[in-house]
């Protein structure tokens, strides 16, 4: 298990502030966050490239805070592959095993195993520059996986690849994770990767971890406005909260949004249950129903408004509807902050 305790790192341009995180054995954790939120530094700190100014890191109960990279058994894969250009593909994959003075026979066997799993055996004699992006990333992953690392760090491993290659490699990452059972921390800013790969997801912003949970939790119940915006919740409203018979009521521009569950409070420690506290409320578009007649349902929120315009936009093959109502935008929310 990897345990990070109150890590702070200051590199001038980027900084990490008081990061705590636990990653279980064999877990696939995805870290998501906007550019410049410190994701890469966090990875490089775990890998031992930077020493934290404060805090401690434990790996399987052993403290590794001050340990040099090579003793940690943590491997890293970068977005831009970082294959050694002066070595062949095979030499690249064998690089780490050779550092460990593994016997040639064993190296051969492990390299062959990983290459087969990733479908790159036929590339062994080639130089990295002659490979496509997808092939290079497979080699980089193979180079890390042969080390059988305690933790494998993937820094935006799929971001530089085209759509089809990305999807294929994503499936393969899932398979590799299953086969090797390695603990993986995967940094991305792509939501698809979160949903298809992550056991848990951590959201980072401005050098801090702002929320950790299952993908469903984070996307359904974003903890603050930044996450809501980042995970693509379109309908975010600001209003005053009040409690009414065990339900949360949020006043937004004269409309009342009722939420069955209160949020956990913002970063500032605001208690959403206190009357008059400003909160953000979001309503998932898929939870909105529009009907010409009053609905007979248990939905608590129904507003009668005139529909003034309804347009269908077509962009790039996908179409979506945008509905405009009289006055303020009306919604049929039934869910949460």
């Amino acid at each position, binding site marked *: 298990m990897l345990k990070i305790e109150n890590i702070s790192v200051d590199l001038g341009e980027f900084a990490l502030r008081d990061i705590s995180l636990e990653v279980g054995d064999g877990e696939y954790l995805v870290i998501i966050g906007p550019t410049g939120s410190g994701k890469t530094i966090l990875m490089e700190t775990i890998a031992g490239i930077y020493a934290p100014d404060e805090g401690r890191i434990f790996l399987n109960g052993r403290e590794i805070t001050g340990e040099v990279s090579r003793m940690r058994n943590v491997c890293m894969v970068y977005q831009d592959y970082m294959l*050694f250009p002066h070595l062949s593909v095979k030499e690249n994959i064998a690089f*780490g095993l050779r550092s460990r003075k593994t016997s040639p026979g064993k190296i051969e066997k492990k390299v062959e195993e990983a290459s087969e799993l990733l479908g790159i055996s036929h590339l062994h004699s080639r130089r990295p520059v002659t490979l496509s992006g997808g092939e290079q990333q497979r080699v980089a992953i193979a180079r890390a996986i042969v080390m059988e690392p305690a933790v494998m760090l993937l820094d935006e491993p799929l971001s530089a690849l085209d759509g089809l290659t990305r999807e294929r490699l994503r499936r393969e990452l899932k398979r590799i994770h299953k086969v090797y059972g390695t603990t993986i921390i995967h940094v991305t800013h792509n939501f698809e990767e979160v949903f298809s790969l992550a056991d848990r997801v951590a959201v980072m912003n401005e050098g801090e971890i702002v929320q950790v949970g299952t993908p469903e939790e984070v996307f359904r119940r974003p903890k603050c406005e930044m996450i809501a915006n980042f995970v693509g919740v379109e309908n975010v409203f600001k209003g005053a909260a009040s409690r009414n018979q065990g339900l949360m009521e949020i006043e937004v521009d004269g409309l009342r949004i009722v939420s069955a569950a209160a949020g956990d409070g913002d970063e500032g420690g605001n208690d959403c249950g206190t009357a008059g506290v400003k909160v953000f409320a979001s309503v998932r578009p898929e939870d909105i129903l529009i009907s010409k007649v009053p609905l007979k349902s248990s939905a608590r929120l129904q507003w009668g408004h005139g529909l003034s315009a309804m347009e269908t936009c077509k962009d790039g093959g996908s179409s979506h509807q945008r509905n405009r109502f009289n006055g303020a935008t009306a919604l049929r929310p039934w869910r949460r902050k």
Partner: protein
Amino acid sequence: MVSHSPPEALLAALRSEEIQFAIALSLKTSLASTILCLAVAVPAAYALARYDFFGKTVANTLLDMPLALPPLVAGVGLLLFFGVSIPGRDLAEAGLVFVFTPLGIVVAQFFVNMPFMVRVMRSTFEGISPRYEHVAKTLGCSDAQALWRVTLPMATNGLIAGSVITWSKGIGEFGAVLMLAGATRMKTETLPTSLFLNMSCGKLDEAIAVATILIMISIFSLYVFERRVGGLRL
């Protein structure tokens, strides 16, 4: 210039004892000064490219200074240092005599050419992402091993180009060499010195033979340099 004298005269001049001596001395001294440059410039350039440290700007300026200084002036400075200063005298007493000796030629070439080597190597190292070393370290390398197994092999082009340009500049160095090592026939007579000596006493065939060799060396080194570091920013 090459076609001024008939080829037979050039070949005869090339066979003369004096020119042969100059060629040998030039090759030896330039090789020695290039190796010295490599030994100092590679670590210095690596530090300048990779680390931030106190006094980095000053170090950069100091290293670049001989670049702006006329070699003749640099030679005078070296002559004063090795000739009359106390550390210079101590060195001479210890058996390291630089003034008017072949050893002085090596030192003069080294001092004038080191900045070029540092510049070439610095931009070479700057062009190699430190992430290669990061990856190497997570793959079981110590700092030194990462440098040896990854960064230096990746810097091969810069190393070759820097060495060749330093070597060819070393062979062609005249001003600083003249000041520190003098121009003694058959003793501190490098190719440029030989060109100067033969020219000043009217031996045109010999002078042109030497000039031809120097031209060939320049063309060769320029070719290697362009092929190896066409895209490097210096």
